[in-house]
């Protein structure tokens, strides 16, 4: 018998569920070694019901994980059916197709039993400090170069740690204390969720399946209502990206039919032997993020809010690649999806979209200075597109949310001397409203021996276009000692080198006056 949950009680329990995942998330971030987890919220904590349907997700997690952890839990359930799970099990994997699209994210899940019955799962995924393999770069050709692959395993079985798995991971990564520190931090977060969920269920005696159904049904109804506000019809948009030998095309066709939406990526470029392939979980995460930000930003993330949206990308295309396609720099292409959605829907809701801007770029630098090893990862944000209401935002992270690192902290960690961190004025595209400006960042490498650098730069050849008559921004650019370079492979930086990084400006909106 299912019970109907009173809307007041539901609101209270719902608040509690979100505060449970947020509390676990806070604890995890504070202990995290991964700079991406803490500077960029590159993690997500989720509660699902016993069949892997998301009920609550941590509030500040970046969009890349919308819905990926519950998908992973459903894959875990295929590998380890419910009747084989027991109290004290901890499941682990970093399989890109079942997880988040690259091996750098390890997902952990634990079954939650209440009064002897499996009622829920606690799940978390986070970007590891290191997973072995080559330094992350877009030029990688196969997944085997990207690092250790962890199949679906029980890291802990009924409370007993499988030390073979621990030894295997530790042996294959550059910083075993930090990577295993974060894995155990993930396990602790799942236990925290479990403990708090027990308290909640003990207090309220609510039946978890009923709770899950009620939360999902209400979120789904709200999403359907939001879609209904859009005029039904078919909307198309193409967006191009730099690519490598050839440019890459994302082709989106969105059918809005009353209260549901279908996004078809047929016509999108094929997968590449480069680390920019986007697995379906990630394709779905960023597509749904774009839709939610546009039409219903205030609905909590759970399985219900994604039900009215279906997504198709043909197998073998860059948004649904076949194994062993690498995906370490999947963000470069995945970050185009929200603006592809907005470009298509700009005809349906011109007041709720941004013109395209640019996602973030990154630099990994490692070497030895004064005989000591150092390593750093830094992000370069760019200009964002303008909207019908106003100019685009300058130098800000979208659709991800990666902060910069203070100059003083960079200089204390790696041997560089920063010359400037400036707004790249005039780089935003003209329009009735101008695109936001990109960043101009320059430094001198002052190490006493050469450093290995990996640049993951985006929007270097094809600038973010304008929308509805707005003009394109300027593309990004990197110069080393005054020479423009387009870097796909790792490079060696010589002492005294001067590096200038310029990121793209956003597209303008509407024809310039």
């Amino acid at each position: 018998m299912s019970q109907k949950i009173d809307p007041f009680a539901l609101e209270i329990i719902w608040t509690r569920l979100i505060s449970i995942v947020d509390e676990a998330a806070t604890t995890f971030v504070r202990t995290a070694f991964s700079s991406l987890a803490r500077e960029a919220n590159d993690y997500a904590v989720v509660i699902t019901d016993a069949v892997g349907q998301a009920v609550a997700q941590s509030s500040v997690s970046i969009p890349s994980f919308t819905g990926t952890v519950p998908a992973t839990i459903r894959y875990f359930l295929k590998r380890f059916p419910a009747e084989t799970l027991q109290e004290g099990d901890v499941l682990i994997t970093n399989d890109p197709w079942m997880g988040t699209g690259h091996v750098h994210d390890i997902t952990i899940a634990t079954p939650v039993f209440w009064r002897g019955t499996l009622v829920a799962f606690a799940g978390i995924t986070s970007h590891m400090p290191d997973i072995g393999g080559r330094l992350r770069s877009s030029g990688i050709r196969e997944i085997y170069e990207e690092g250790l692959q962890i199949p679906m395993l029980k890291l802990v079985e009924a409370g007993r740690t499988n030390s073979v798995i621990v030894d295997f991971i530790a042996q294959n990564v550059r910083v075993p204390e930090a990577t295993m520190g974060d894995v155990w931090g993930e396990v602790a977060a799942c236990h925290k969720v479990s403990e708090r969920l027990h308290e909640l269920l003990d207090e309220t005696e609510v039946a978890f399946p009923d709770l899950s159904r009620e939360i999902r049904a209400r979120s789904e109804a709200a999403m359907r209502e939001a879609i209904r506000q859009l005029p039904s019809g078919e909307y198309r948009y193409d967006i191009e990206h730099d690519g490598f030998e050839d440019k890459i095309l994302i082709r989106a066709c969105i059918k809005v039919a009353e209260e549901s939406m279908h996004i078809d990526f047929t016509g999108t470029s094929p997968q590449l032997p480069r680390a920019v392939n986007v697995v379906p979980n990630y394709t779905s995460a960023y597509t749904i993020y774009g839709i939610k930000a546009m039409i219903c930003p205030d609905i909590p993330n759970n399985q219900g809010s994604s039900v009215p949206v279906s997504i198709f990308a043909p197998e073998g295309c860059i948004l649904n690649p076949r194994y062993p396609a690498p995906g370490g720099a999947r963000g470069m292409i995945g970050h185009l999806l929200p603006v592809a959605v907005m470009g298509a829907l700009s005809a349906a809701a011109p007041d709720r979209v941004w013109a395209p801007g640019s996602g973030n770029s990154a630099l990994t630098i490692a070497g030895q200075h004064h005989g000591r090893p150092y390593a750093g990862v830094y992000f370069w944000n760019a200009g964002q597109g303008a909207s019908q209401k106003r100019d685009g935002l300058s130098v800000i992270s979208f659709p991800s949310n990666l902060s910069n690192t203070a100059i003083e902290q960079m200089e204390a960690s790696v041997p560089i001397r920063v010359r400037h961190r400036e707004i790249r004025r005039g780089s935003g595209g003209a329009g009735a409203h101008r695109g936001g400006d990109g960043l101009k960042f320059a430094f001198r490498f002052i190490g006493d021996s050469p450093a290995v650098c990996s640049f993951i730069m985006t929007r270097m050849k094809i600038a973010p276009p304008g929308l509805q008559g707005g003009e394109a921004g300027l593309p990004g650019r990197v110069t080393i000692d005054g020479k423009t370079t387009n870097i796909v492979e790792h490079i060696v930086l010589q002492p005294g080198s001067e590096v200038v990084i310029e990121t793209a400006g956003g597209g303008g909106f509407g024809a310039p006056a």
Partner: protein
Amino acid sequence: MRRQLRIAVDIGGTFTDGIVEDAGTGGIWVGKCLTTPDDPGRGVSTVVAQMLAQIGEGAAAEVVEVVHATTLVTNTIIERRGARTGLVLTTGTRDVCDIARELRYDLYDLDLELPAPLVPHEQRFELNERVGADGGVVQPIDTAELDRVIAAIRSQKLDAVAICFLHSYLRPEHEQQVADAIRAVLPDMLVSVSAQIAAEPREYERMSTVAANAYVQPLMVRYLEALAGRLRDANIGGVLRIMLSSGGFTSVEAAAQNPIQLLESGPAAGVISATNTGADAGLRNVLAFDMGGTTAKACVVRDGEALVKYGFETARVRRFKRGSGLPILIPSIDLIEIGAGGGSIASINRVGTLAVGPESSSSVPGPACYGLGGEDATVTDADLMLGYLNPDRFLGGEMKLHKDHAERALARLGDKLGKAAAETAWGICSVVNEAMASAARVHIAEHGHDPRSFSMVATGGAGPVHAVDVARRLRLARVLCPIAVGAGSCLGLLASTARVDRTWAHRSLLAETDWAEAAAALGRLREDGLAELAGGGAAESDVGWLVGVNMRYLGQGHDVEVSLPYAAFTGDVASLVEREFVARYKHIYGLIVPDAPIEIVTWRLTGRPPRDRRSFTWAEARGGAGSAPIARRPIYLPFSGGFAEAPVYDRYALAPGTQLAGPLILEERESTIVVAQPAEVSILPNLTVQIDLQSKSKQ
């Protein structure tokens, strides 16, 4: 012996409150007036005169100390009424205030507004100078270029200048050189130097802090001078002290130098008051809980000490959104604030459940029950509907509440969910109480504590109305409601002491730390701090010094603070520091990271005299002693899910030692204590109401 009086005055957003204390007996007199934003000092004079008149002839001459808190600094920044400020920066960093951290504080908001820097671009000046990450000079200052910058500052007719150079926390000499040069040419210019205001790495946050200091300084210098003049004119001879965000006070001179530290002085004093209320009842673990018209605040007090954090955000574009404000690096009582108060508006959200706040009805028209035309159902309407508030005694009877208006507004909202007005009222009350409990639960857990080891101290107009139910949700066993709930922060001002905080930003691996160097640095900080403490009236022999070492496993981004007495820092104390770190880390996170090297990130030194437990009570006895109820009325009892008659008492008619059993209502002028469940209620000797919850009720 001659009587010694101490005065506390707190300027809040709406009211300026005051309390005078007879330092010998702990007896207090209170005063209150509306805040006078055009000239905030006028309200101070009014309140002080009010109180001294109550005490009688000659009281002014008996005043030995005046402790003051104000929202003036916060309001100046929020309302953007500060000085025309200049900012002198290392070449290449002029856009850093605009670029900030490149983050969106709301992932889903496509109409995001970002906080504008306090100093506009054209008032920022670059100077070619450079200190490296090791503290060495890379490029010295060229005096000819400096002269040109000073000429530009002069031509802009600025009122204040802030200086922030890269790595100045390691080597402040360049900033100092520029400050000296500016003062030499422009002797009246107020100059703020980043290494003195916030000696910590991270240029954006330090720049934001020093710019804010300069921005408020001219106004605060004038205000503090004028205030001292007013007190002199009123023949009040005592020394003026100024409350800081850290929960300690300082001298007028130090406050004028570093006014940004006053940012959260009022709320900090409120927490000190709760700390003292707990201490006076023999409790050292307290959750300070304050609920007013628009917000609720909570702060953890552990072992008799309120938590202090070293980063803070002000002037948020969206008040309850972390990351939407300007960062300020000052020691500040670690308060959480959520948008839940008496005026918070209830509505149906997009998923068809009940949402309360953060939108709040302003005082006009206000909640529906004010009868001033407000249509929205608010928390106050719900409280009235549930019988918790007395319609004839709200704010001591100054404002009559209209239950029929409340009922109509609640019924209108309830209709959409198929609920009656009373059910809707309890829905609002439980949603807002759960929101506050959830926020407090996460805040307590972040610091590794168990809520059940805390007692709650409730203040603010709506605090005592909601405290018992919030405590029940947090499984706290005890709630305390001190006297003078409307002027609680003034009791905190009186219970506080002088305090200084100093920082030494010096990173090293624990295993490679030069302990002699650290001891020498701490010694310098102590010397510097002593001078300021003397100005705050603290004798050197009384001052206790505590060293905070911020540490983490190498590679982590958050640190854990280990606190040790200054006296422990003799010689190599690596193993002691490591033990403390591991214990603290394990306590917070439940696990440690084996084999990972430990890093020290920042050193902090706090100095202050011991804060004695203070016992305050009314100087003149109020009401008659009697424990009979003044009325009975039906109130909503959540554990039985319905209304039942409960006795209503006049709080101040109850004598110390009185024992009562809940459910019951205690009314006082400024608030109402609601006990809607079984509980033991006792009146303590200082008239604090103590409520011991009985844990048999269920949600």
